[in-house]
């Protein structure tokens, strides 16, 4: 075998080996991600007794009783619509105000831009735990404790630091000449925002939607302290009713977790193309 053939042969073998290794690693990570979901769903159809005897096997006599029990005890019929309302309105609010502020910070420069922008960005560094008690005091003082308004205001406020940062950096990449020529043609800032900035900022808006929809759907710590009435609570608070370290009914606990997970999985399945594009666009341009 000539030297050239040897190189080609080993190159091909090396390429295949590298490819196989890459696929093996990806397969491993896929299994690591998917298996817990599969395990959870599978065990949610077992009785607690069956789960305690066999934690890895398929259910012998699958039952939907766990789902019925979890739905009733968790009062999910009340919590589900709330989760939808909080997630949808807060995400829309965050996107709208982030783009609006991002436009102002990126394209309408003034002396106030730097301190105002900084005051928002510092919020990224604050943890939810540090804000919990002050927020609780604030909503009490404002008289909006135990209202949907309090939840929406806090969720939108909590999402704005990251939202404004991403939106500002993205909008900075939109040529200023577009804004300037629109101004020369007599367009006001609102018109420019709606007709030029918003359509061009769809990728960053998608990124914000992905970040916030999953975050708000699963959010627990803030809503726990903002409301006390079941009629105003969201799904994670219902799921937490099943999460004791001394738990005896694993079946209901797993069913409750699956109920909370299904909408997010559905969201991914329906919007997976947009999510992939949005993450890539947000990452590259942002």
């Amino acid at each position: 075998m000539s030297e050239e053939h040897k190189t080609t042969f080993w190159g091909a073998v090396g390429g295949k080996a590298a490819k196989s290794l890459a696929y093996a690693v990806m397969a491993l990570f896929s299994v690591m991600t998917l298996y817990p979901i599969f395990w959870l769903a599978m065990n949610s159809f077992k009785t607690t007794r069956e789960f305690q005897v066999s934690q890895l096997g398929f259910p012998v006599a699958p039952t939907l009783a766990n789902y019925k029990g979890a739905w009733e005890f968790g009062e999910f019929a009340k919590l589900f619509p709330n989760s939808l309302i909080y997630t949808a309105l807060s995400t829309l609010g965050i996107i709208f105000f982030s783009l609006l502020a991002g436009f102002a910070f990126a394209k309408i420069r003034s002396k106030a831009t730097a301190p105002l922008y900084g005051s928002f960005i510092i919020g990224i560094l604050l943890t939810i735990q540090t804000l919990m008690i002050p927020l609780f005091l604030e909503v009490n003082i404002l008289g909006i404790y135990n209202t949907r308004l309090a939840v929406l205001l806090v969720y939108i406020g909590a999402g704005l630091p990251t939202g404004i940062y991403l939106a500002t950096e993205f909008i900075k990449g939109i040529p200023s000449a577009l804004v300037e020529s629109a101004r020369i043609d007599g367009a006001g800032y609102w018109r420019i925002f709606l007709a030029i900035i918003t359509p061009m900022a769809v990728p960053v808006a998608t990124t914000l939607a992905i970040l916030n929809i999953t975050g708000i759907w699963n959010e627990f710590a803030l809503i726990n302290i903002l409301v006390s009435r079941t009629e105003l609570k969201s799904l994670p608070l219902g799921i937490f009713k099943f999460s004791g370290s001394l738990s005896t009914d694993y079946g209901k606990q797993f069913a409750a977790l699956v109920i909370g997970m299904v909408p997010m999985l559905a969201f991914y399945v329906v919007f997976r193309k947009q999510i992939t594009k949005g993450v890539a666009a947000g990452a590259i341009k942002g």
Partner: protein
Amino acid sequence: MKRNRILFALLAVAVVSGLLLGGCAKKPKVVTLKVMNYQQADQAGYQEDVKVWEDFQKANPDIKLEMEVLFNDPYHAKLQAYAAAGTMPDVFYVWPGSRSAVIHEKKLAKDLGKLLGADYLKDFSAPAIDPNNQLGKYMAMLPQSFTYTSVMYVNKKLLKDNGFEVPKTYADLKAMVPKLKAKGIAVAMLPNKDGWPMQSCLFSTVAGRMAGDKFFDAINSGTAKFTDKPFVDSLAVIESLYKDGILARTDDNVGYGEGPALFVAGKAAIMIDGDWRTGAYITDKASGKALIAPAAQESDFALMPFVAIAGEANPGVLSAVAGTGWALSASLPAGSAQEKAAVRLIKYLYSPEIQAIRFGTGAYVPTRKGVTAKVEPLVSMVPTFYAANPKTCYVIDGAFDPAVYNVLNSGLIAIGLKTSTPEKVAAEVQKAFEGWKANKK
């Protein structure tokens, strides 16, 4: 025109009369109580608890309960938020020790000793109404139970099948190791992945036997140290349990929730746990399933105190602590309708009927005297166990701050994993204690 005026006058008279008559009809004035309940939806007894509250509401239409139901850490986080804002609910669920420290230290709950009175409290066991068993040294809450945190759940059948009797001494445990180990059975199991079970369910008892409550009081007053011999010797007992193969070192990888199933599956002859765990083995009323069938509970299982240890200064003591209970907000105006309604609710919750329901579901053995219920054999063994073992000692996590006992919990895991020694752990705990004390100043 005139006709219209007459009609208008008649209408006005009708409206005014209606209003006056409506005002005369006395409606009972409804008092609203904000209640914070601690409730786990997948725990045995959940449905009974829901009914307890519904029944109160039906029987007391003049009281409207605004319930907030939480469980585990979310409950405590919310309670902290209420405490910080100074807006405590009217009635809430409290721990007697450091878990609800803010309530006791800031005196956010009324003194139930004064409010309920000696005549009412005489129906409760003495440790439950002793204010010294609560962090603030006043009766901020009325413990529903007095919990023994250290119980040996013994599988008598498994022992008998292998030719052993129920163990009484450390030597008895050690003698079982070769035969049981050869069959892949642990002599004793103490799932300790979560850190606290070893300290709460075994070490506190060992330390109570070797060192005693007076030793820990002396540590708190600065006249003794964790590095002193009694405490180091207590840690050495834990070390020898692992060295002698009585406890498996793999227990440090077993989650607390996994223990009962493994024990029932015959993976260990003895499970070391708290008395509250009887609830995990009995029949769940919702599903009708039990980890141990009632007949087998009676014939094959027993609750026993931890075995005698060589060198113990206080033989037979077991770690125990006042259990959880209900408290009333200190901000309820004295003598107000709200306070009266809250007292009515508290008396309902502690009534013999409701306490019998709790006893029957295996939630706890009530501190209210004379409560009986039709319970499964394992639950009925608990009061007998209390009566046979009246001498109690501190549970360390009830006597010291988390800054101290968390270091001990980690140290006990390290001893189990052979990565530390009793002397080193004792020194670390002492250092943590001194640090906590310095910060407190």
